[in-house]
């Protein structure tokens, strides 16, 4: 077996700040993961379709524009709709603590806010990936 953890790092919506996503992508690569980095301005449909074609274990979304209450749940819905029942869906970016419960309710497993060490993200994925 040569199983590697595969992660899709995507930025849904119109947010153009990709430094955080790139930092996380590199950290995940350094942890031995394969990171499909799709860049900016992804629609939820594009994210779900890419996740399915790449058969990723994790969908990691980065959003700093405040559109997470709409976009994150939409991505969850579409990813599950592709038949990816086990994919771990996580998010990060500028997300108020008070918004997190609703996101978790919608199927986002965990949200990593600014200041979180990247090791925490790596460890979370290793512990929770199916």
């Amino acid at each position, binding site marked *: 077996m040569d199983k590697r953890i595969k992660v899709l790092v995507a930025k849904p919506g119109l947010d153009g700040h990709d430094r955080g996503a790139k930092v996380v992508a590199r950290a995940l690569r350094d*942890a*031995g993961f*394969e990171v499909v980095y799709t*860049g900016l301005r*992804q629609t939820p449909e*594009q994210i779900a379709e*890419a996740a399915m*074609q790449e*058969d990723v274990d994790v969908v990691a979304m980065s959003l700093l524009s405040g559109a997470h209450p709409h976009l994150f749940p939409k991505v969850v819905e579409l990813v599950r709709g592709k038949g990816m029942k086990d994919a771990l869906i996580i998010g990060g970016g500028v997300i108020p603590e008070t918004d997190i419960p609703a996101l978790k309710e919608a199927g986002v497993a965990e949200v990593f806010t600014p200041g979180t060490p990247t090791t925490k993200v790596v460890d979370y994925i290793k512990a929770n990936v199916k």
Partner: protein
Amino acid sequence: MENIAEEVLKGNRFALSKAITAIENEYDNATEIMQKLYPHTGHAYVLGVTGPPGAGKSTLTDKLAKEYRKRGKTVGIIAIDPTSPFSGGAILGDRIRMNELTLDPGVFIRSMGTRGSLGGLSHKTADAVKAMDAFGVDVIFVETVGVGQSEVDIVKAADTTMVVLIPGMGDDIQAIKAGILEIGDIFTINKADHDGADKLATELNMMLDLDGETKDWRPPILKAIANQNIGIKEVVDTFHKHHDHIEGNGQLTVRRTERAKNEMLDLLDARIGAYVRHNIVDNGKLDEYVQDIKARKTDPYTVVNSVLQDMLK
């Protein structure tokens, strides 16, 4: 997923994805999947795209795929990026250049890391190509970073190989390993609006002249500006020309026979290697051997001989 192979043959895209995962991760069901898919392969035309980093291979592949779509063909793309030899991880970033293709139902893109395969490509790539072939795509692009030896491997996987270069390499072209010039059926100078495009074309021609031997196909040198969609139709037309040429003179059959041979040998090597490693790595014997080797009580050659002898008993 149940019945992955059957689902692939029915045109189920998620099944294709699962099949490629089984291949890549060496799941137990991979062999059975490939056995069921194999009879349905042999239809897709496989295009190799290689060249140094930064040449614009992904952008070019994106535009070429769109042109094939305009011509009514379905397209598969396997985009290969290097795995870090240190961490075992990889950034698979080619999809960035192909975003518009993601939602095209006639296109399937899969990113793969080289995963320590010395040649850059591996039997896993060949199997992923077969899975896409059995699924039913007309044209499959295999796009890989060409650094060092790995360019040569792509010839094994493709019917037609295109080498993508960019101007500004100047004298560096002399430093390009001979392999890259030998494997190109087509050379495309991308970013052809940059200074030095003509100079590069001249140098390439000179080096192809030096090749001496009469080959019946003189690799054309094309120019393109991929991100402005310039020169794309000509590249696709040239792919067709090469296809017709090698079909006409029997070379296509020769290449595919070579490919089948190489794939079988690669698969054999991989399986034997995995079996042997399993027998000495997973049980900790390797560590014992290494201690003895370091202490000069024995040497790697003797150890390997004895391991193989044990296995072949």
